[in-house]
């Protein structure tokens, strides 16, 4: 079995910051907007190098989304930065009308998604954002798993013409994907080959899926782990090809089971090849204060939960 290791942990938001800084150097049309969270979004390098292309909006996210939409008229490629909660739920109608329905080339970049935001608690821990964003016609939805992938995704979405929701997080997590990778929107990545179960994960849960697959291997279960960084458009082929072999699937995400990756996968399977599926996700609940590890343990979003879900789904084959 192919195994993955890491030498350091880094936050995915820093990957965003590095990607944005790179874009600042290579693409003169890229502009950035922030609603009073420059440090949290790691936008400092872009701002230092391109002060004229940065717009500090203040604590006014609705205005930020509208201004971003307006900036596209004139050929700019705006990247907005704030927490995932304030990037989606707070500004849903602005995104819906001024960006998605208007077909504007805005990149909505959202940090601190999910439970791993930690101690700030449920007001800031959005677990519904993937659902909100994927329901908007024409919106691309991406949730990256580590620093390198987030950096690559940030660079790649500038080349994509259309609105994108890019979701990443706060905590330092293992860096295990290649440096300087090419990011292909809508193309899943098979991380391990396996025959017994397909594990499809997104964001911070990808590493947990790899950890789970190691333990499962020791138990004699061969898992095929797929990194689905793009929830919409979903790489249906990589999922269907895998379940044709394994006959069962576990989906894993730092999001409510309603509206998330799991639901998109379930729809694909129901349409093309009904397959037993277990969902590793939050169970229609809000989060709470705690350390990221405590929260992921309490709400069942780690390798242990993936192993339990796998054992359960294997019995349903």
């Amino acid at each position, binding site marked *: 079995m192919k195994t993955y290791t890491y030498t350091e942990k880094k936050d995915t938001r820093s990957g965003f910051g590095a990607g944005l800084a790179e874009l600042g150097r290579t693409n003169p049309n890229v*502009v950035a907007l922030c609603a009073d969270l420059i440090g949290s979004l790691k936008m400092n390098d872009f701002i230092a190098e391109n002060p*004229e*292309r940065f*717009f500090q*909006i*203040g604590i*006014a996210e*609705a*205005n*930020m*989304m*509208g*201004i*971003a*939409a*307006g*900036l*596209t*008229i*004139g*050929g*700019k490629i*705006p990247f907005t930065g704030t927490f995932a909660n304030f990037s989606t739920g707070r500004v849903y*109608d*602005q995104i*819906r*009308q*001024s960006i998605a*329905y*208007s*077909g*504007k080339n805005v990149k909505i970049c959202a940090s601190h998604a999910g439970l791993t935001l930690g101690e700030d608690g449920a007001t800031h821990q959005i677990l519904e954002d993937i659902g909100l964003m994927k329901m908007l016609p024409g919106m691309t939805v991406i949730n990256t798993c580590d620093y390198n992938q987030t950096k690559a995704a940030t660079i790649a979405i500038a080349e994509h013409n259309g609105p994108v929701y890019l979701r990443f997080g706060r905590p330092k997590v293992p860096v295990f994907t290649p440096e300087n990778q090419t990011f292909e929107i809508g193309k899943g990545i098979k991380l391990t080959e396996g025959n017994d179960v397909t594990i499809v994960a997104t964001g911070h849960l990808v590493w947990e899926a790899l950890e789970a697959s190691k333990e499962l291997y020791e138990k004699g279960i061969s898992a095929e782990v797929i990194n689905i960084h793009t929830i919409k458009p979903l790489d249906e082929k990589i999922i269907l090809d895998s379940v044709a072999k394994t006959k069962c699937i576990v989906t894993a995400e730092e999001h409510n089971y309603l509206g998330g990756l799991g639901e998109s996968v379930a729809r694909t399977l129901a349409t093309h090849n009904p397959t037993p599926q277990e969902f590793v996700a939050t169970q229609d609940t809000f989060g709470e204060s705690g350390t990221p590890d405590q929260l992921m343990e309490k709400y069942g979003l780690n390798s242990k939960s993936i192993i339990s879900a796998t054992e359960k789904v294997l019995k349903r084959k």
Partner: protein
Amino acid sequence: MSKSQHLEDLVIQVRRDILRMVHKVNSGHPGGSLGCTEFFVALYNEIMEQNDEFNMDGIGEDLFFLSNGHISPVYYSVLARTGYFPVEELNTFRLINSRLQGHPTTHEGLPGIRIASGSLGQGMSVAIGAAQAKKLNNDKHLIYSLHGDGELQEGQNWEAIMYASAKKVDNLIATVDLNGQQIDGATDDVLDMGDVKSKFEAFGWIVIDIEEGNNLEAILKGMAEAKNKTGQQKPVCVLLKTVMGNGVDFMMHTHAWHGKAPNDEQLAIGLEQNPETLGDY
């Protein structure tokens, strides 16, 4: 024909278009549309510099954003009669498979429209973004926008109004249609906004009053003054006092025709008060 006569004729013709469009589909918003007819005619025929071909990016021309998208009848009529799309297409207003949606949208590719509007309060932010893009592109042209007065009750406007002065967005002329009416009644009764002029001034804007917002000459004079005030490190607001339903006597001075179409008899009266000038579509 003198230029001013042509504009007067156009105003009458646009009123007829508005009445006929909403009557045909028994829906739409004639009141605010009629109230802003003179403004749109002046804006698209005298005030704005426009390129011959429509291009979304609008480089090298003035741009207009309609925030109160429900007054689409006047917008569509004036766009068509300014050459953005065939006048006959006004026949398709609000019909299935039309580019002339109930509220304006870029989605169907209608030339002249650069943003969807309808859900209120979003246009000021968009206009500011477009104005800042113009600055980045070293394009000296201006951004114009129109907002309803009732629409100012949406909080996003005040985020935008605060931002525009703080960031010295001085290539923007945002016009507020002060007709004093909204769906549920007079703005003063629904939610009294107090002194709108003082509010804009307190937020750091230059404010120009156009007391006779249904008088072409007054509009041209006021908008010229507004243009002169651009480039002074401050955004410019025009308070345009209009009469809702202007030009059709029974529709004037009331919110009753905000979102209601005339019946056959009412249409006939309205058209009689505005005899055909440039030809019906």
